[in-house]
């Protein structure tokens, strides 16, 4: 009887052991394997990173990168088929949807900073953008100092409005800063002369100008309010196994030179749906980053 019990224990132990062996997958990877699906969060109007084309299908630079990550995950999990689900997100919903497991990757234009890393993780940087301002050619602004006493708009809740506020104090500009609900509204304020300048990530300004009624009327400043800040694909925090796969996939993509090819497709050629060309060559900083991929939130790490 005693022997039998021992045998039972051994059997139970070996069962537990084999169970553990099969379950070495955890978190997002396990979830993807169990459901056979991965969910990408996309933005509907973040041109050219992630937006809807004329078929209402999400496309863009960040989407292309995400599909490469999906391929890598599929390979890692040795799956024959991996269903890709798409879920729209906004800046207000991306965190709750990431936290509750609705989306596994956020493919957009989210700035990677230290504050946000307390809540989520980011993979290797896919874009660098500095805070500049757009103005009408007719208003004759030259430098940040020319904004003295003028009305300047930026989007509420962005790092840009924070930098603008800081510069306003540091350079004692005495500018009247008004927050706008979103980028489109902020640009509308400059278009309708409610404000002389709109401070935002330069790449977003370029796409707003390219899409405006008369792109030739607008100029984007040379002066910048910040060092180039990194954009990253967002994923859940504390999921080292998944992050490793994603990091490896993006690093391979960027170092192989394919990253730059995808970049050129979205920033140097005409993009749908309106056939706009943003004409923004890859910056030296981003080129360096692609050679040595990093997920650092610190702008000083991108020289």
């Amino acid at each position, binding site marked *: 009887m005693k022997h039998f019990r021992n045998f039972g224990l051994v059997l139970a132990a070996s069962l537990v052991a084999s169970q553990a062996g099969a379950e070495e997958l955890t978190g997002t990877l396990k979830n993807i394997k169990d459901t056979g699906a991965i969910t990408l969060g996309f933005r509907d109007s973040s041109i050219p990173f992630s937006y809807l084309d004329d078929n209402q299908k999400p496309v863009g630079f960040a989407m292309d990168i995400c599909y490469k990550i999906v391929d890598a995950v599929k390979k890692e999990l040795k799956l024959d088929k991996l269903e890709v689900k798409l879920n729209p997100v906004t*800046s*207000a919903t991306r*965190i*709750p949807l*990431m*936290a*509750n*497991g609705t989306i596994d990757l956020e493919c957009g234009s989210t700035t990677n900073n230290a*504050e*946000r890393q*307390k*809540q*989520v993780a980011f993979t290797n940087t896919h874009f660098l953008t500095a805070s500049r301002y757009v103005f009408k050619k007719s208003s004759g602004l030259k430098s940040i100092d020319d904004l003295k006493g003028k*009305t300047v*708009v930026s989007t*509420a*809740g*962005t*790092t840009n*409005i*924070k930098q603008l*506020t*800081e510069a306003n*104090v540091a350079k004692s500009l005495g500018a*009247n800063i*008004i*927050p*706008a*609900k979103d980028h489109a*509204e902020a640009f*509308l*304020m400059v278009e*309708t*002369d*409610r404000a002389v300048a709109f401070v935002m990530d330069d790449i977003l300004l370029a796409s707003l100008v390219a899409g405006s009624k008369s792109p030739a009327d607008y100029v984007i400043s040379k002066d910048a309010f910040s060092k180039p800040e990194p954009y990253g694909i967002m994923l*859940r*925090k*504390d*999921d080292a196994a998944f992050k490793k796969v994603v990091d490896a996939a993006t690093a391979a993509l960027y170092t192989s030179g394919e990253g730059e090819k995808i970049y050129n497709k979205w920033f140097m050629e005409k993009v749908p749906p309106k056939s706009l060309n943003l004409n923004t060559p890859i910056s030296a900083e981003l080129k360096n980053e692609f050679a040595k991929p990093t997920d650092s939130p610190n702008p000083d790490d991108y020289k």
Partner: protein
Amino acid sequence: MNYNWNWKIFFEPNPMGTGTYLDMLLSGLWLTIKTALLAWIIALIFGSIVGVMRTLPSKAADWFGFCWVEFFRNMPLLVQLFLWFFVLPELLPKAAGLWLKQLPNAPFWTAAIGVGLFMSARVAVQLQAGISSLPRGQKMAATALGLTTVQGYRYVLLPMAFRIILPPLTSEFLNTIKNTAVAITIGLIELTGQARSMQEFSFQVFEAFTAATILYLLVNAVVVTAMRFLERWVAIPGYISGK
């Protein structure tokens, strides 16, 4: 849920350099209260005038009141604010439009006036209903006493009608407070706007909106309590709304 709760976030400094995140929300709350109070005053004044016009014997007054109510009541508030803020200045002569656009605090005035006029249509309809619900004899008695129409309304009809519609007016006041949240669409960063800013900066979305919800509930509780006191204070024993 893989969410990193952090209730201490409210006491951390906000990135705008204006104190803590809590200060940010409180400044939004103050703007909400200011906007709501100004809007409510506008709603009461215009609502009373239009409500009375709709009960006057004059056909023209009735027609004007009808148009006012249908215009402001039938268009979504969101659309109205957008029209006042972005479209109206473009329709004016260029100089006047520019002056309007560059008015300091333009979103605040637009929001207060826009929400106020929207709510005035609702106040008007309620006042009209309140006046119509009075027995016809009241108006006749006022006339028989030798009161003019103005005096009849001032001393007989309105004091009664306002007492009757006081409870529904309380909910309209609460609606006014909640409706100010629509003003973020024209760039007024009130309580909802600040909660959104806070979640954009810190990514602590649930904490931000929990705090906003509690603040709205507190303000509404204050309003409800105050209105109950007012109802008791003006109540006349023996009448519909009195005890």
